[in-house]
């Protein structure tokens, strides 16, 4: 495995008595689209602020390209672009003027480069309009443009699809995928939506209440553990009979309200549907669910109730 380009070691942040992040160890490798997942208030933004030096860790360190952000901030951030939470700009300035400001802090930029990134995010036509006339989606895209301005190797995006409509979300998602695929960028992407991470990321970490829950390859994490299939339909007796049959390959099942929860391989789902239809079951729904998804939903729900 290549050397990590982002590494946090025992990263903690304490606000008064409360730990927002505790003992966090993350590793991101070149070429990754790294999903950083957690419910609202889990500590994602605090972590990203520490990665990008907006917040000083109480304990631990962050290494970017092998450089400590605490000891060698300049070298650590040289090849990093980022957008933290909602994209805020100087609203009274145009996109070009805003990007000139950002460029000045990165050792200077050219108008050509500014127009390149604006074209990439589809804002070239509005380059000289004041940002206050932009929609939320346009600001979000300008946020990505400023993160790309210095042609960074690592791009850190904090909930980049927040508040966007489905079309806007799809566009940003495609942009992130193209950055990794076509421009060989490494992307760290935080989100509170597993589905979003599942679509774009190859590796991910789940954080809850400031602590790392799990980290690894998205595919292996989602495939690991038990897979549940939730079946609803009628009559119930026939469903039970099919699930209990050896032919269905169902390992175990239980009834929960109107639903049957079966533990089985996802590959056997088509066969199960076939058997249910053959035995005269009127199927209403067959929903595959993975253990991580269940786990993530449970922490998301519990945090939103709290």
């Amino acid at each position, binding site marked *: 495995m290549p050397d990590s380009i982002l590494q946090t070691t025992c990263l903690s942040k304490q606000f008064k008595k409360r730990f927002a992040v505790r003992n966090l160890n993350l590793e991101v490798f070149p070429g990754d689209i790294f999903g950083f997942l957690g419910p609202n208030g889990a500590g994602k933004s605090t972590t990203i602020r520490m990665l990008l030096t907006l917040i*000083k860790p109480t304990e631990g360190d962050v290494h970017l390209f092998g450089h400590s952000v605490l000891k060698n901030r300049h070298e650590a951030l040289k090849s990093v672009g980022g957008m933290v939470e909602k994209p805020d700009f100087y609203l*009274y300035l145009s996109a070009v003027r805003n990007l000139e400001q*950002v460029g000045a802090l990165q050792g200077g930029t050219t108008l050509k480069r500014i127009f390149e990134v604006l074209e990439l995010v589809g804002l070239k036509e509005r380059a000289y309009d004041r940002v206050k006339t932009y929609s939320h989606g346009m600001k979000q895209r300008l946020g990505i443009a400023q993160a790309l301005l210095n042609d960074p190797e690592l791009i850190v995006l904090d909930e980049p699809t927040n508040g966007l409509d489905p079309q806007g979300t799809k566009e940003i998602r495609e942009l992130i995928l193209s950055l990794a695929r076509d421009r060989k960028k490494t992307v760290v992407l935080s989100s509170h939506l597993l589905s979003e991470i599942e679509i774009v990321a190859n590796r991910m970490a789940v954080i809850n209440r400031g602590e790392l829950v799990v980290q690894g390859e998205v595919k292996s994490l989602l495939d690991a553990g038990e897979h549940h299939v939730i079946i609803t339909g009628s009559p119930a007796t026939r469903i039970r009979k099919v699930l209990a049959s050896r032919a269905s390959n169902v390992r175990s099942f239980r009834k929960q309200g109107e639903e049957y929860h079966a533990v089985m391989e996802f590959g056997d789902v088509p066969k199960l549907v076939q058997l249910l239809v053959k035995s005269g079951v009127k199927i209403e729904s067959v929903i595959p669910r993975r253990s991580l998804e269940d786990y993530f939903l449970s922490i998301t729900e519990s945090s939103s109730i709290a």
Partner: protein
Amino acid sequence: MNMIRLVYYECVKTFLKKRTYLGFLIILIIVPLVEIAMKIEGGRFTGATLRSLQQDFFFVGNLFNGWIVAHQLMNSLWVHIPLLISFVAGDQMAGEATAGTYRLILIRPVSRTRIFFSKYLTTLVYTIVFVGFLGILSVGLAVALMGTGDLLVFDRGILVLPASDVAWRFFAAYILAGWSMAAVATIAFFFSSFVENAIGPIVATMGMLIIMLILGVLPVEFFQSLQPYLLTSYSSVWTKVFADPVRWDEILTSVIALGSYSLGFVSLAWFIFVRKDILT
């Protein structure tokens, strides 16, 4: 990274903001209004000023001219100038926090110290430009409208400065006024560096100046012992060049005291800013 470039881009940001021009607009309205009114009123203005003295003295010739009007205006405007200065200086850092743009600029590979000082230098540039604008407009317009002549001032008595000896005094007075306002701007900048809205620094700066002004004039022994430490004891340093002979030693003391105030507050602001967690 080139500090000049950082200051240039900070200046672009500051001078493209509408609020930056509010102070200029106020000056642009007040100064011509007052000076044109004085021109129309003519000698009645000096007559009112000198009325009490005319019982004991006999004035020969016309003392009403551009110099005396510009001097009077300088005296009266300096009460309001700190407010107009703190309006922009107080927004330099707090404005970034309010707009959320700290998140845009502080994730770059440039140190917070450089960003901080580029902002501070921009604040000083604004202060100098503003004081310079006030000086050129008020003196230039007064002289253009009412011509030059001897300048009558009160400095430990009545002093008449010959017309040929006045121009350099105005020039020096505005340089000292700029130095004095830089100290006020630094205080506003200091408050701006650790709050998240621009109103707080303006109120805090003005509040601090008013408190010091009151403490400085109260005839209480304890408060009088504080006088050497109050900014307001030195902020009217520019008036000292309208003395004959000029008391350079007092000017030097004031310049050092104002400089120390600026240095102290900017150091404290820097200390806070580089350690600050950006949570907005």
